[in-house]
């Protein structure tokens, strides 16, 4: 837990890596994921760094591997994905690996090229057969032309695909036939007509089956066309146009005999090609299968290798050029492991001089490292979404583990829904080692990653559901209601008492639509229900009024406690960073401001609950009016909650009013005073030097961190604070903005917490509506058909419950809980300082993926 409360202590270490062993050492470090490297060559552009050649080689390997993977997936061979992540390959193997891969690539390219060629050939032949088949019907239609063809000398078909043969035709009538893709037919016809001015006849018909385009590999619809034309000039143009529209032109046979011959020839060739193609594909598959075995681990290895060289690029060279110097951030707890890793790396490479490390003192603020486990990870992620806390700051994630599900549950309070959610989360948690879950789709993975949050949210919802006594909008009567209806009838009471009370008799019960139970009558209210809200309220017509009043007050109380808690966390921060003056000048005025106004409100609420009973409730003053009067000082006398209330309120107001100027001016004036008169009393002086040191550290960190990372403004602001010229205006400005934000925030955030009530109300009402519209209708039908009807009704009810109430409402409550935590976390992190700074979390950067 300690590590979750604050981030780990880090130290800056300098690694001296012997140039021969640097690669192995980094590989060993990377496997453990211990350190974060600092870039020591920031001014050197990426292509001038030392290991750029190696990085290039890795990229080349990556390119080959990507090609392999692409081919393998195209061939539908499953990629074996081993769980193991192999270490980066030793340098000796790299060359070997590169050679292997290059050879494989060359071979593969060759084979695929051949295959493509064969395929293209095959497709063309198939197209040709289709064309022949279709054009035959054209010819049959135009029988009158038949004699004309025979006048021409027969084509010598030395090459099947030679469509230039047409040019050799000395005759006037010529034919061009081929295939054109569907989309182009119309434009093609138009242009043909325009260019040839009608000296052509175009016949076309659609092919019934779509064919693959040999060029692009797309499967599209084709048209077969036949153009008959007069004259050589026109023929030349027709050919040009065909080229332009990317038609596939095939020689047109002039006689039926010839056609048959060609057809037969084509058939045998297609047969041959099929067999050859099959053989090639088999061979290709073999090659790919062999490659697929190792490709996954190779990809990881190359990635690791590339990462190592990237890290090496960040190191600087020693003057003697014999070793590389790297600067790393490492958690203090892991220093031993770091030394071990270095030794291991040196031993592996068999170097004579071991690599060693050196801890160097630094004034820079280290990056934040918060170790999480699978349970705390989700909560930490929620907190990190607001911004990563600065080094050694209190980490609100620890408290979020409880407060987040609780606030969620307040909004989502329903025993049944909570239980369903709990079961779902439990299912995920119990099966968390199932491989399909961790590799599931995006939405499912979101649920999976938040499974522990869901689990707690479900549990807490069960709890609040019990408190609200809501189970699918119905109440559960576990202990028996505390209200007794029979006591409302006169018989139970002594005659002397009866006169004062409004009791029920037959006529009252018969004629009134609404009956009121009066708790002041003895015996009617027999004490509170042991857990949560009395189930009898579920029947009452004024249930909403009652619940609203209860939930509204509850949300204000919870909200103020939550906000106060945030400020108190801020105090922990100030204590840790030894900025005591911040406690006196910022945190305490803040607390006073909040508690004097809203603390008093809470006090009034609780006081009213305790003091007024059923008998005296009619004279109880309204808290709202009292609260407003606190600020308005009404002239007319009001009877307050307790004697002397007016004076207490005045006093509280005075304290509030006093804390505001302190909040606004206290810190800047104090800092100014420190700056001007250093030679004051000793106690604060020691504090001051510490303060100075702290802030100086911060500044140097801000200066050195990559400028792109953070907010320029803040950086500038901080730097000026501690630069020799003390910028009073700047500090004052910051503090004033912070104070205004806080004071306004107190009011608006309190209002904001009312969403607890609003969402809880919305949830209860929605589930109530769902019950009334579906289940009540289903249950009302008479017994014979009711059973049949009830089944679909229950199914619908379940589906709607899951989608609307669980998923939709749950999501909205989740988002609102996130919003409420933002208030808390903002308070705890002491306002502007370092809140949204983004330190690099030391991470297994070196590791792949």
């Amino acid at each position, binding site marked *: 837990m300690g590590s979750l409360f604050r981030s780990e202590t880090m130290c800056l270490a300098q690694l001296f890596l012997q140039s021969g062993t640097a690669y192995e050492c980094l590989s060993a470090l990377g496997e453990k994921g211990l350190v974060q490297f600092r870039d020591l060559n920031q001014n050197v552009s990426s*292509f001038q760094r030392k290991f750029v050649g190696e990085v290039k080689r890795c990229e080349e390997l990556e390119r080959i591997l990507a090609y392999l993977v692409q081919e393998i997936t195209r061939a539908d061979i499953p990629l074996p994905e081993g769980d193991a992540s192999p270490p980066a390959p030793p340098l000796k193997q790299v060359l070997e690996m590169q050679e292997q891969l290059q050879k494989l690539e060359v071979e593969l390219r060759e084979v695929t090229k051949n295959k493509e060629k064969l395929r293209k050939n095959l497709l063309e032949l198939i197209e040709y057969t289709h064309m022949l088949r279709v054009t035959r019907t054209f010819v049959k239609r135009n029988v009158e032309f038949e004699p004309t063809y025979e006048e021409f000398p027969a084509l010598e078909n030395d090459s099947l695909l030679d469509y230039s043969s047409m040019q050799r035709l000395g005759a006037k009538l010529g034919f061009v036939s081929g295939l054109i893709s569907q989309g182009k037919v119309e434009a093609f016809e138009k242009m043909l007509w325009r260019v040839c001015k009608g000296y052509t006849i175009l016949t076309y018909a659609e092919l019934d089956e779509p064919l693959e385009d040999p060029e692009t590999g797309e499967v599209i619809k084709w048209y077969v066309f036949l153009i008959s034309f007069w004259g050589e000039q026109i023929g030349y143009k027709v050919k040009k146009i065909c080229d332009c529209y990317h038609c596939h032109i095939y020689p047109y046979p002039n006689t039926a005999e010839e056609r048959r011959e060609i057809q037969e020839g084509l058939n045998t060739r297609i047969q041959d090609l099929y067999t050859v193609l099959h053989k090639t594909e088999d061979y290709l598959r073999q090659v790919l299968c062999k490659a697929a075995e190792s490709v996954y681990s190779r990809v990881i290895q190359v990635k690791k290798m590339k990462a190592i060289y990237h890290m090496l690029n960040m190191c600087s060279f020693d003057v003697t050029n014999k070793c590389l110097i790297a600067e790393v951030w490492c958690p203090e707890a892991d220093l031993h492991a770091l030394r071990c890793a270095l030794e291991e790396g040196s031993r592996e490479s068999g170097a004579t001089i071991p690599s060693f490390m050196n801890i160097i003192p630094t004034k820079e603020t280290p990056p934040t490292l918060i170790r999480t486990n699978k349970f705390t990870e989700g909560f930490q992620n929620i907190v990190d979404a607001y911004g990563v806390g600065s080094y050694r700051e209190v980490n609100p994630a620890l408290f979020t583990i409880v407060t987040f599900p609780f606030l969620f549950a307040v909004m989502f309070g329903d025993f049944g829904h909570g239980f369903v959610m709990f079961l779902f989360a439990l299912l995920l948690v119990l099966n968390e080692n199932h491989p399909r879950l961790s590799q599931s789709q995006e939405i499912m993975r979101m649920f999976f990653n938040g499974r522990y949050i869901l689990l707690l949210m479900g549990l807490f919802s069960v709890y609040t559901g019990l408190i609200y006594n809501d189970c699918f909008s119905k109440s559960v009567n576990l202990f028996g209601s505390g209200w007794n209806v029979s006591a409302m009838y006169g018989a139970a009471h002594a005659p002397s008492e009866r006169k004062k009370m409004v009791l029920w008799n037959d006529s009252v019960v018969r004629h009134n639509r609404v009956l009121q139970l009066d708790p002041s009558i003895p015996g009617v209210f027999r004490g509170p229900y042991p857990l949560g809200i009395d189930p009898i309220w579920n029947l009452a017509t004024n249930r909403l009024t009652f619940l609203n009043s209860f939930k509204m007050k509850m949300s204000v109380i919870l909200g103020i406690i939550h906000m106060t808690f945030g400020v108190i966390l801020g105090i922990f921060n100030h204590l840790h960073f030894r900025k005591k003056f911040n406690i006196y000048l910022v945190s305490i005025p803040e607390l006073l401001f909040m508690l004097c106004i809203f603390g008093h409100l809470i006090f009034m609420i609780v006081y009213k609950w305790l003091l007024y009973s059923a008998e005296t409730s009619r004279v109880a003053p309204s808290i709202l009016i009292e609260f407003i009067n606190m600020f308005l000082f009404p002239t007319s006398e009001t009877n307050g909650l307790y004697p002397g209330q007016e004076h207490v309120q005045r006093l509280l107001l005075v304290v509030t009013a006093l804390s505001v100027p302190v909040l606004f001016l206290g810190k800047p004036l104090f800092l100014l005073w420190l700056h001007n008169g250093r030679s004051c009393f000793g106690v604060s002086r020691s504090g001051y030097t510490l303060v100075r040191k702290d802030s100086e550290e911060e500044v140097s960190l801000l200066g050195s961190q990559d400028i792109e990372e953070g907010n320029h403004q803040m950086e500038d602001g901080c730097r000026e604070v501690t630069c020799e010229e003390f910028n009073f205006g700047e500090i004052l400005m910051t503090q004033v903005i912070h104070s205004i934000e806080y004071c306004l925030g107190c009011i608006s955030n309190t209002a904001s917490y009312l969403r607890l009530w609003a969402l809880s109300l919305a949830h209860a009402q929605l589930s109530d509506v769902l019950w009334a519209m579906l289940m009540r209708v289903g249950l009302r039908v008479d017994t014979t058909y009711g059973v049949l009807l009830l089944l679909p009704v229950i199914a619908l009810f379940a589906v709607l419950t899951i989608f609307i109430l669980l998923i939709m409402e749950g999501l909205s409550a989740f988002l609102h809980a996130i919003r409420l935590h933002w208030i808390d976390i903002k308070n705890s992190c002491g306002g502007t300082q370092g809140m949204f700074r983004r330190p690099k979390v030391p991470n297994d950067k070196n590791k792949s993926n």
Partner: protein
Amino acid sequence: MLEGAELYFNVDHGYLEGLVRGCKAGLLTERDYVNLVQCETLEDLKIHLQTTDYGNFLANQTNPLTVSKIDTEMRKKLCSEFEYFRNHSLEPLSTFFTYMTCSYMIDNVILLMNGALQKKSVKEILVKCHPLGRFTEMEAVNIAETPSDLFNAVLIETPLAPFFQDCMSENILDELNIELLRNKLYKSYLEAFYKFCKNHGDVTAEIMCPILEFEADRRAFIITLNSFGTELSKEERETLFPTCGKLHPEGLRLLAQAEDFEQMKRVAEHYGVYKPLFEAVGDGSGGKTLEDVFYEHEVQMNVLAFNRQFHYGVFYAYTKLKEQEMRNIVWIAECISQRHRTKINNYIPIL
């Protein structure tokens, strides 16, 4: 007059405008150029370009890397961006885009015709065509022998058709005629585009008209410069000048009479915009060429176009800037590959 544009612009074109502004932010900066110039080999150039918005657009290219490969890939990238804009555009922005592609289409048509004249195969030339100006009928261009043929047979259904009205003639297409055809086409294209922008009104007119005016005047200057010492008659020369520029009409008449660079410069001196440009031209060795000066001025205008909102000019400006950037990269790459480092700094910086 302005309300319309400001109120409704974003309904139809807001997404694209945001997109194009984002793309503009990805243009190479001064710093990038400084780094690029330092590169020793094309591989270095590739590595540096990888760190910019170009990403690993060269990753799939096999070695060795050549300048033309880089050029084609860059063009492809620009083209895919442009296609995206175009596919998502609504009227009248899509017409605007069509107008933008027209200039590339004219270039492509002329290129193909020149190729046909020199008996080169269509495939060979197709590679050189700008992908933005690609259209299906393009490959059939060399069927035509006269401009009217060309119009009737090939281009009648393309967006280029309206520009042909002035250049229908039965001349045989030889080299000079093709050049004349190009200039005439360009003239009517620019005038039509200018008219379109003018009619559109609003900020678009305010931004685009000066850019197009400059474009027209630049053409006039360049035509004049290129016609010195050729058989082109002065009357014919005047018919080639686009008339939508600032030079129209007096300047153009004077230009038509000009006989050498000095006279041209004197014409330019009458115009406040062009005077400084001609003064910036260095004489002979070392100085900037007129072309470079014009390019710089164009870049400036295009960058300024981004200062206004709710107009189409940003798309035009972005494409032009990107083109200039590509020219710069190609220039630097050429200098690197030919080891001609002395001139490497002659690229046009994009502000």
